[in-house]
């Protein structure tokens, strides 16, 4: 656990970067520091590994004042990832990753073996071990940076805008990687970003800073979206926070109807008999969605024709029951020509469809859940 106790950083020219910060980073969780530039989030991060020393106040790591620790020793127990990667250009990927183990006195061979394990852990090919950093893509370099930070298995990981320099597709995959790593490793992570979307995606807790180093709100992301503390927070999290909040409500509670769902070998007559405006045709066998058919178009088609022979309209995407959120379900409904969201199981088999009415009911029930979350002491 990391504790900031009334920490202030004032520079000789009088600029206050961090102003009386009190913050607790819970063990094994990801805390995201987010805010506009110049809000003191990076300064706060760098005070944890003593790259910056506070002017007032104290920072405790597992109950020990970090000023009582030798800086070099302290830092070897804290992984550090930065936007520009800071990889050593003159060392191969494996020797970059093995940096801290070697500093801790490991033999080079053992450090290299460890480096290869880590390459796999961060989703890189071991073939890259002998390359130099400049021979890698930006996303690969960033993964090596994460591997290097994790090499000595530090309990704490500091990440300063780690994914800001890569394109959005690579960024999303790096964020997913962090989430899956974190599910496995349970490090105490402090991540700085200016991107509220990123904060909401990767954070267990989000600390939102105001300009000049004051905290605006510290809350889990779903609470930040549901109950912003003031106008500043509300405007920072954005106007579509209502929709984004649905990303935190599981779609499990959504009622699914099977009335409009028919297999490809069902006939036009069966579709007409259902009295549904739209029919979702599924693949015979796999049960995966094939596409929508508008029953108004069926009048001119012979009754015995199997639905599989008709042209269908695309369904956009389906949501996976048990894995996806209400936001994904709502999105699926919006993109569907029939205005209905298709729910599938983990194998892609259609479980049923949800209309906007059913979605609204689930959202309202979800808000009840939100209220209960807030009421919790």
């Amino acid at each position: 656990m990391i504790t900031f106790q009334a920490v202030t950083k004032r520079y000789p020219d009088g600029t206050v970067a961090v102003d009386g910060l009190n913050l607790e980073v819970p063990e094994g969780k990801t805390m995201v520091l987010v805010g506009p530039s110049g809000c003191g989030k990076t300064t706060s991060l760098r005070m944890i590994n003593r790259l910056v020393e506070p002017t007032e106040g104290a920072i405790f790591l597992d109950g020990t004042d970090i000023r009582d620790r030798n800086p070099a020793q302290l830092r070897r127990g804290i992984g550090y990832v930065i936007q520009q990667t800071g990889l050593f250009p003159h060392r191969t990927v494996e020797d970059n990753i093995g940096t801290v183990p070697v500093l801790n006195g490991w033999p080079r061979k053992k450090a290299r073996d460890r480096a290869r394990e880590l390459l796999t852990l961060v989703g890189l090919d071991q073939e890259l071990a002998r390359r130099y950093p400049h021979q890698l893509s930006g996303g690969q370099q960033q993964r090596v940076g994460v591997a290097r930070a994790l090499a000595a298995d530090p309990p704490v990981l500091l990440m300063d805008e780690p994914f800001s320099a890569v394109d959005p597709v690579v960024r999303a995959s790096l964020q997913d990687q962090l989430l899956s790593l974190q599910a496995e490793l349970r490090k105490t992570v402090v991540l700085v970003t200016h991107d509220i979307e990123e904060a909401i995606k990767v954070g267990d807790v989000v600390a939102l800073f105001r300009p000049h180093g004051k905290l605006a709100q510290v809350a889990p992301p779903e609470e930040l979206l549901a109950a912003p503390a003031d106008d500043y927070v509300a405007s920072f999290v954005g106007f579509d926070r209502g929709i984004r909040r649905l990303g935190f409500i599981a779609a499990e509670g959504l009622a699914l109807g099977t009335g409009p769902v028919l297999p490809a070998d069902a006939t036009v007559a069966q579709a007409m008999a259902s009295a549904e405006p739209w029919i979702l045709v599924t693949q015979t066998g796999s049960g995966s969605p094939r596409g929508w058919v508008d029953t108004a178009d069926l009048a001119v088609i012979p009754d015995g024709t199997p639905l599989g022979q008709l042209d269908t309209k695309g369904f956009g995407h389906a949501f996976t029951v048990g894995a996806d959120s209400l936001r994904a379900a709502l999105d699926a409904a919006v993109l569907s020509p029939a205005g209905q969201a298709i729910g599938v199981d983990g194998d892609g088999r259609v479980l049923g469809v949800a209309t906007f009415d059913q979605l609204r009911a689930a959202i309202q029930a979800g808000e009840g859940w939100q209220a209960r979350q807030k009421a919790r002491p």
Partner: protein
Amino acid sequence: MMWSWIPSNGSLIWNLTWENAKLGVLPALIGLVISLPLGVIAARWRWFYPPLLTVINILYAIPSLALFIALIPAFGLTDTTVIIALTVFSLCVILPNVVAGLRGVPAAVTQAATAMGYGPFRRLVTVELPLAVPVILAGLRVGVVASISLASVGQLIGVSSLGYLFIDGLQRSFPTEIYVGLVLVIALALACDLILVAVRRALTPWAVRPRRERARPRPQQLEEAAI
């Protein structure tokens, strides 16, 4: 051009070439050894560099012959006099490159090194200096070439080098000797330069392209070095 002069004076030419090589390479290497600590200090404590650079420029402005003469009372008409003078000139070329090389290490790299638990000395030796090698060696190349070329001036105070061939050739109105001296000075400089390029390649397998190694001599230095 009298080609037969060359084989009949083989041992003289060989000895002079060897002397000239010694007078060129030694000062550059000593200059490098002195430049490293000074450069480290100048790169770390920035206020130290501007006055240092002023001193260097003044030293560099002294004509080589004048510096030789100034050193004679202390060291006589010896190799030492020439080596000290040429060391001063090499230093003037190499030191700015040491500083530039160290300052050119990306801030993100030094910050990451610190954050990973390097102490300042270990970081300097294992991260910053290796990364500065291309720029430092570029300075060393200029230093060696300049010293080899300037060493011939030492002949004026009687220290033997390929400069002997120029003076002797002039006194005897014998151009062959002058041409041979000129070709050998250039060949020697080129050979040393190629060796240093090979050293740089061996030391920096990681370098992206040899583009960074481009020397950054101040133009007037190069002109002076060619005298």
